[in-house]
């Protein structure tokens, strides 16, 4: 047993007489191992963010409001697939005097590093740029596009992508 003093057991490495602290530390060590090898990967995968989805990018545009403006997001080509070149288009209605918006791509609940899509004006409140949604090997498919309009604020579009 882990915390018994069984010196008759054959073992290539000399067994030491365990103390209470040894038992405690052994338990902590096993717990830590279990956490790093089993719990973290499973929770990273199992957390359900699908309830957060507020945008169906595969079948059209999505709209959110920000300070009286309508912010319309479109991603093409459809269906939206990871690891492909995508065109992001933002249309702003109701406000003409704004700086160029930009989009930060990420995953809810998982840090993926800075992935910013810079947009250029096409006139009449329409801005577009290209970017890529990367594939997460955990299998999670829920992504978040945070559209920021400088000096106005930001809104989040949460959607699923195809791997």
């Amino acid at each position: 047993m882990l915390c018994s003093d069984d010196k008759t057991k054959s073992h290539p490495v000399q067994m030491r007489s365990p103390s209470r602290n040894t038992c405690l530390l052994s338990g902590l060590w096993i717990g830590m191992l279990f956490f790093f090898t089993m719990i973290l990967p499973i929770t990273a995968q199992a957390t359900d963010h699908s309830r957060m989805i507020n945008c169906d990018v595969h079948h059209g545009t999505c709209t959110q409001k920000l300070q009286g403006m309508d912010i319309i997001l479109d991603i093409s080509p459809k269906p939206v697939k990871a690891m492909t070149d995508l065109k992001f288009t933002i249309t702003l209605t109701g406000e003409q005097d704004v700086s160029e918006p930009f989009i930060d791509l990420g995953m809810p609940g998982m840090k993926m590093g800075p992935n910013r899509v810079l947009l250029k004006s096409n006139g009449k409140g329409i801005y577009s740029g290209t970017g890529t949604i990367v594939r997460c090997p955990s299998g999670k498919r829920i992504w978040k596009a945070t559209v920021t309009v400088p000096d106005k604020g930001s809104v989040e579009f949460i959607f699923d992508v195809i791997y």
Partner: protein
Amino acid sequence: MSSIEALYLTFLTTGFAVGFGHCIGMCGPIVVSFSLNLKTKGVMAPNLLYHVGRISTYAVLGGVMGATGAFTRITTGIGGLQKGAMIFAGLIIILMGLGMGGWIPLGQIFGNYCRPEGIIARSFRKLSSIQSTAAFLPLGLLLGLLPCGPVYTALIAAAGLGMETQNTFNAVLSGMGLMTVFGIGTVPSLLMVAKLSGMGWLKSRDIIYKIGSILMIGVGIYFLIKGLRF
């Protein structure tokens, strides 16, 4: 500070942040498995060699991204390699777990009693000698190809740097530099995990060793399934 230096700093801190937030969850199990398999040696030297290998692969990928500025084309091209790396990682962890637990005599089959011929047999013999410190460098080089979301994100930035740089040589260097600083940023978290899991006096206890072996096999199966599905 130039824009490139600012980007390097951004990705160094990104590597550090995702190291503690993302890499521990996704790549931590690999590091734990390797550290557990080091029966008597210190964990730092082999782990550092592993990270040198991993970061070298990142740097090469960053250089290619910088030179071409084509993230999606290159990643599509190396998709098969990444799948292979993930499956290999799963298999090697399962084998190490089985060997460490004493359930398969890796040394007897491939190391001590025969001199096998052929690539596969020789490869398995190499696997049995994975406790050698030097083996961690090629292991890192290979497993640097493991698919990983934050690595992809850094590669996108490397490709973007390449498109902004006029000179191809500078584009290669800037891509390599970006991926190198990103990789360095991820090292502290994984070294911490390795150090914690490689506490030698605890590993000398048989029951813990067996539990560690079972966990390794579980992790290996997890990677194998992920690799087959990738």
